[in-house]
């Protein structure tokens, strides 16, 4: 990372991402939590662009912000009133403690390791990515598409209402 621009961008994005992730943790209203989550996603997308992967950054925005976050909002609206608080379960304290412990371990590992870093960013275009997906990684790619199809059909089956099932059974 050279120059002031990327450095500044990193700090701004780090603050944005982490603060809004904290917002997801502390906000009591589920909808506000989703809004914080969206900001966090956008920050991560910014990180991707900063890490010379603009295509993935855009994909992050399309998929996470445009699709997943909207889906979450929709799901919240479909589970009315009662399902809209964002309170803690009784296992909250152990969970938070566990995360803090994990954080300590990870931070120790990160700071303790001597990372060998390359100077220049590798030039990876969207075309390269597509080539790799359809040659080297073609099997996982196909499996992923099968997984997506399965998820699509599965979620349709899950949210079908009893009346619709009855209609289908009649036909």
């Amino acid at each position, binding site marked *: 990372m050279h120059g002031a621009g990327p450095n500044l961008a990193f700090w701004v994005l780090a603050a944005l991402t982490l603060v809004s992730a904290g917002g997801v943790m502390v906000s009591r209203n589920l*909808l506000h939590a989703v809004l914080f989550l969206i900001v966090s996603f956008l920050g991560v997308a910014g990180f991707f662009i900063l890490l010379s992967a603009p295509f993935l950054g855009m994909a992050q925005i*399309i998929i996470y912000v445009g699709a997943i976050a909207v*889906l979450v909002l929709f799901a919240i609206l479909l589970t009315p009133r009662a399902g809209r608080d964002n309170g803690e379960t009784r296992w909250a304290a152990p969970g938070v403690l566990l995360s803090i412990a994990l954080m300590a371990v990870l931070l120790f590992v990160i700071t303790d390791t001597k990372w060998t870093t390359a100077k220049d960013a590798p030039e990876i275009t*969207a075309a390269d990515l597509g080539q790799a997906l359809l040659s080297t990684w073609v099997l996982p790619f196909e499996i992923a598409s099968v997984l997506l199809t399965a998820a699509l059909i599965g979620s349709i089956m899950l949210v079908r209402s009893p009346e619709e099932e009855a209609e289908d059974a009649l036909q």
Partner: protein
Amino acid sequence: MSLLMLITDNWYDIRDLGNVSHEILYQLDRVLPYSLVYIIAALMGFVASFLIFVLPSQLFVGVLGERKIIGRMQSRYGPNRVGKFGLLQPIADAIKLIQKEALTPKAADKAVMYIAPIVFVAPAVLLFAVVPFGGHSVFADIPVSIVYFIAISGLPVLAAFIGGWSHANKYSLFGSMRIVAMTISYEVPLVLSLLSVVLITGTMRLGGHDGIDGIVQWQRDYHIWLIFLQPLAFLIYFFCVSAELNRTPTDIAEAESEIVAGYLTEYSGMKWGLFYGMDIGYALAAAAFASTVFLGGWSMFGLDRWIPSWLIIIAKTHLFYFIFIWTRGTLPRLRIDQLMTFAWKFLLPLSLANLLVIATEKVIWNKATDGNFDNFWVYIFAAVNILLSVAAVFIWARLLGYRPEATPKRPRLVNTASGYVPIPAPSREVR
């Protein structure tokens, strides 16, 4: 010709505004630190695109022109009181909106309600970053600008959604639910139609110039606009984008006659004004994008050597925007289930079929020319695609049950008052 050579690509060559900005930045770079030039470049691009494109278009085409044109369509004058021909009307509107009291309902989620217009405005400005106004005058010439455009244009729906949700108004909630459902549905054929464009051109960059691949450059190279090569993709894009922009006939999210103003119901003053203005901004951005991808962008079959390229793209954008105004002035609104059916049963299969056809053509092109692509095949493909598009649209509509002749459009006439007159059974002997 020699005169043209003299000014080509020099800073005073106004055919491409990129030249002058390059020159300014080059000179600045010699005296200022890099990071400062970085910021100045960003500001300059912003100010330039704002002054040349967004502001005049938005104010005088979006606000005033739309009202004038629709007024003419409705056999009235439109605004003509403020200034000559009502030219100052947008400014008067803005002043009025700023002065107006911005009401906030008591039950509203205030923070969200205040944030929503801001979230709505930001992407509209960001969208213009990748629209090329000339070979060198692209604000942000990123290699994946099509994906960028799709990504950013998916953001305003969030603003509309949270804005509508935040005021605890049932009409607004209706609008919010509708806009989200509609946007999710229409995003799919939209992306698929653009995918076919990417497939045939082999690049995700919007602009490009001599030496750099780009969609506009591709259209210049092969002397054809993509609207002729891929009419079906253009149609699908047009329908999808007008659905996402909430323009009639698909403005169900703010359907005035049904749910008052949808997600805008409780907004007033400048908060409403931001939504209103930026709606126009999005429409202009979509029009600019469409004219870049499908109408050749800043190129004009060689005429761009003589006419400033930014004038060409502005003209095309306004032409496209006029179509938006036209549909708004004449068409009724669809119902939400009809819209969903249209997206999933009509546009999606057609876009998939289009993708298939384009992929096949690309393979044929590859095989036939052995990698040395030439114009001949492009024109053949254009002819084939136009025919196929027309056939596909009509056949698919028929298969889905579209029978225009089955609907009588005039009432029956009887001469005496009697009771119920049964409908005569349709006679098949005529055939």
